[in-house]
């Protein structure tokens, strides 16, 4: 089987059969979804990482065979020849691919035109016919989109092999399911055509009565209590390009306090549920259970493409034009990311008055722990845990832990700070070098005494200790503290010459 030929024929048939219902084609489409594009897409995904949106990138592609989309179940699963060819690309093959893409885009545009025209027509046709046509159109549309995505995705040779290593096959198949799901039994429902050039979403659905606004799509799934770390969680998601659609909100939309607006009176709400409650006041038609129910609950069972978001700030890694684009998972992630990264930090912690945040939730989290960061590095960084501080110190040259000024931990009973204090209080740190303290009564007497050392008891009488009532010793508690023991006095009076043959040079060994 010549893959390319088959593919082209297939495409021609589909585009030509837009007006006339072709049963055979439809059954074919719906009967073999799991394997329909499976092999081709899978092999691409094995080889390429998806850093940027498919259509806009003008990146090298690869040979024709890579866009083959075998529509037979018995096609060999491991087509190694394909994958090996992917490794080396040639410009001519890329050109082929690009022209293929161009052709597809044209087809897509025609289709969209067709849809727009049909919607403008008055509802005069028999209802059944309209439904059938819509089903056909959407089926075709979907197939084209999938081809587009797969081809465009294969144009990106940037990160080879990584996907093979990191992403298990299972998850890829899951993703493929996401793509293939539109081919399920109800192809008409929930298929979302994509206008990639504008990155805005058309909400093409069977519910024609709903207003077809971008707002609705963007606000969908907005919940305030999303985990705020989500932005980081999806860091290693590694979704292949094209396996998701990329939405980009504008700055004003991101920063708008309200995201849900009443179409009638214009009042804004933070939550869709509140809006729905509000809508009840505008008439009975908004009071039906269907209108009050969560909108995406209704379509919950419907298959749809995974949505990812792009930051509107150009140059940001989260912006779809960035070389290593990493999409954001939810709208809340977009909001938090944008505020944290591209906005002023207007919330200041009231406790420390230093830390600033742009997201209120971050401030609240910080305030919970503020003041508990007792582990301080010399660079000023604080840590709530000692091991984190030590990890930091081990990492950075020259950083040391800082010792807080009022550090009494573990040394309270040790003499260090207190000691000095008490010593001063006691007055034994005696700074008067000039003259010997007057209360130094023992030593001078000792000197006088040299003559009559043979009779120690004489000495005592000369000291007048006997006259001293020990009971009254409390009277002179200061005396011993202020004697020659003063820390410095010995430095000056370094000449205690005792009878025992002491001399200054005898004091070293």
């Amino acid at each position: 089987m010549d893959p390319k030929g088959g593919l082209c024929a297939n495409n021609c048939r589909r585009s030509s059969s837009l007006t006339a219902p072709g049963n055979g084609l439809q059954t074919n489409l719906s009967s073999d979804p799991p394997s329909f594009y499976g092999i081709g897409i899978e092999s691409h995904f094995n080889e390429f990482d998806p850093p940027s949106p498919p259509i806009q990138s003008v990146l090298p592609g690869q040979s024709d065979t890579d866009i083959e989309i075998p529509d037979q179940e018995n096609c060999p699963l491991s087509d190694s020849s394909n994958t090996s060819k992917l490794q080396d690309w040639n410009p001519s093959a890329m050109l082929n691919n690009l022209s293929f893409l161009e052709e597809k885009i044209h087809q897509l545009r025609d289709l969209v035109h067709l849809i727009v025209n049909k919607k403008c027509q008055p509802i005069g046709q028999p209802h059944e016919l309209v439904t059938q046509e819509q089903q056909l159109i959407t089926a075709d549309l979907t197939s084209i989109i999938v081809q587009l995505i797969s081809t465009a995705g294969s144009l990106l040779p940037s990160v080879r092999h990584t996907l093979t290593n990191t992403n298990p096959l299972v998850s890829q198949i899951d993703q493929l399911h996401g793509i293939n799901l539109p081919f399920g039994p109800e192809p008409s429902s929930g298929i979302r055509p994509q206008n990639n050039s504008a990155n805005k979403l058309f909400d093409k659905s069977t519910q024609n009565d709903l207003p077809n606004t971008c707002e609705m799509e963007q606000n969908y799934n907005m919940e305030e209590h999303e985990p705020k770390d989500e932005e980081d969680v999806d860091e290693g998601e590694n979704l292949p390009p094209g396996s998701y659609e990329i939405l980009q909100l504008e700055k004003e939309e991101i920063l708008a306090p309200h995201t849900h607006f009443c179409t009638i009176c214009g009042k804004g709400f933070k939550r869709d549920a509140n809006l729905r409650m509000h809508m009840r006041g505008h008439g009975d038609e908004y009071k039906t259970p269907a209108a009050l129910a969560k909108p995406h609950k209704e379509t919950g069972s419907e298959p749809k493409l995974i949505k990812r978001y792009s930051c509107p700030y150009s140059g940001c890694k989260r912006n779809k034009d960035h070389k290593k684009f990493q999409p954001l998972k939810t709208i809340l992630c977009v909001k938090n990311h944008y505020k944290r990264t591209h906005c002023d930090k207007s919330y200041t912690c009231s406790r420390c008055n230093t830390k600033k945040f742009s997201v209120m939730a971050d401030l609240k989290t910080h305030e919970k722990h503020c003041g508990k960061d007792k582990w301080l590095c010399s660079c000023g960084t604080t840590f709530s845990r000692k091991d984190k501080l030590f990890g930091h110190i081990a990492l950075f040259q020259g950083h040391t832990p800082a010792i807080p000024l009022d550090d009494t931990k573990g040394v309270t009973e040790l003499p260090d700070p207190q000691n000095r204090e008490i010593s001063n209080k006691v007055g034994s740190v005696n700074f008067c070098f000039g003259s010997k303290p007057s209360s130094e009564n023992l030593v001078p007497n000792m000197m006088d005494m040299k003559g009559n050392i043979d009779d120690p008891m004489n000495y005592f009488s000369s000291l007048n200790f006997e006259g001293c009532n020990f009971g009254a010793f409390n009277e002179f508690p200061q005396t011993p503290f202020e004697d020659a023991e003063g820390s410095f006095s010995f430095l000056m009076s370094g000449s205690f010459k005792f009878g025992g043959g002491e001399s200054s040079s005898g004091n070293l060994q």
Partner: protein
Amino acid sequence: MLSESVLCLLTEDLFIRVLEKLGPDRKPWRLVCKEFLRVESATRKSIRILRIEFLVGLLKKFCNIETLDLSLCPRIEDGVVSVLLSQGSASWTRGLRRLVLSRATGLGHVGLEILIRACPMLEAVDVSHCWGYGDREAAALSCAARLRELNMDKCLGVTDIGLAKIAVGCGKLEKLSLKWCLEISDLGIDLLCKKCLDLKFLDVSYLKVTSESLRSIASLSRLEVFVMVGCSLVDDVGLRFLEKGCPLLKAIDVSRCDCVSSSGLISLISGHGDLEQLDAGNCLSELSAPLVKCLENLKQLRIIRIDGVRVSDFILQTIGTNCKSLVELGLSKCIGVTNKGIMQLVSGCCNLKILDLTCCRFISDAAITTIADSCPDLVCLKLESCDMVTENCIYQLGLNCLLLEELDLTDCSGVDDIALRYLSRCSKLVRLKLGLCTNISDIGLAHIACNCPNMTELDLYRCVRIGDDGLAALTSGCKRLRKLNLSYCNRITDRGMEYISHLDELSDLELRGLSNITSIGIRAVAISCQRLADLDLKHCEKIDDSGFWTLAFYSQNLRQINMSYCAVSDMVLCFLMGNLKRLQDSKLVFLSKVTVTGLEVALRACCGRIKKVKLQRSLRFLLSSEMLETLHARGCKIRWD
């Protein structure tokens, strides 16, 4: 006059040569000769200050020192440091490489930092036993960027933070001892091992570190000596980390590590076949067969200590036949040491220099004789409590082990005067312990005294037959005695004390329970033994005030005194405590003549410098709390008995 003229002819380098020959007796030379004083001032490299009063003058005189030892000056304080550095040019700090501040508890972080910063060449600092030191002092130490050696034993307040400071500040550290720095944990050790990659010696004894620390330590590629005594949280897992790491490890000490077993040691040994020193005392109950097998591979082993382990003849034989280069063997308190085992051991290890057989009670003459025959290089032999030892084996020791310097015969009741006569042939004896050898008398002591002039340490605890005549012989023969224990030798009287006063170098003297000596004897000792630093007079009840007064007046170098149960009065106690400027430790229990007030005043008189005092428990609430607080604040520890 003649001598002076001769000296004038000598050139400076000849003076230096002469000085080198003089050894420790330089003092009289520099006192009488200006030239010698000048030359010594210029060339002296190390100085140990005994009395802080002279610190300034000495530092001015000896300005080229490389080592300054202030370990005997606990009174040194921050203010002293600033005075020292502000006076003159303070040129002595320029070349200082080694600073010993052990027990200098008075110094705070401010003074320490000023001192450290003033010494740009500082390479080694010892702040061991400065128990008040914490992270701030560690931070001050970390200012010495060239530091290679640091001893922080028992700096109780130092935590991981302080260690981190040092690890970052002193990246060139090669030798670090953290013994008893109880606050330090795995985190600190881990950081140390990441920052100080040049470490060759590391002591983490008694720290509460786990095997995780050993994982970090294993990454130290230059570590040669690792000491982890009493690390009871470290187990075999930790030793297995060491098996793969520390390629240069030469010595390891795992003694008292309760959780270490034979299998851990096996893995350690299998990773380090060139181990030279293994200390595994008191951590194993017995050596398993595989471990013994492993020991066979340690051909380089020089020192092994397995105190307290159950051994067998086979184990000793294995060690003897395989560890040919063994120099030191410690079998203290080992169970199962027999004559046969020892004989098999020493027949292989003929290079043994140190053998510790403390409390190996089944050892008898046969084993000691074999030791004497096989190990002519023996320097130290410890036979405490080996009751079966008699003069026969001592005879062999005296015949063959002429290099013997240290012998412990404590509690060997078989040793008598004849044994001492044989022993006196070992003329190089330096330390001899004869405590509880009740059969020796003055005659035996005289033999030792006549033939062992190098003796510096002699223990005659409870040798009740020793009397004044023995001391007469001893003091005429062993002039270099520094430590002498005469406790409970009740025959000794004041005449004996008179002989003791002839020992110029005596520094430690225990006279516990000598009921016949009085103030007259003590006075002779106090006046003559100027180096006396440690004196124990417990239960010397006949010494009265006049004796203590002479001590207070003359023994200015006294650092420790035990006066418990002595008849000292309020006044003399007060005078003694106030006048002994170097006194750091005094035991004052049951002083019957001293009142509470007198004791209070005495303690006040010395509270600036006393570091340790032992008092009666009953006085705890009678002494004023203000005074106790002051003592505490000045770094004094009170032990209540």
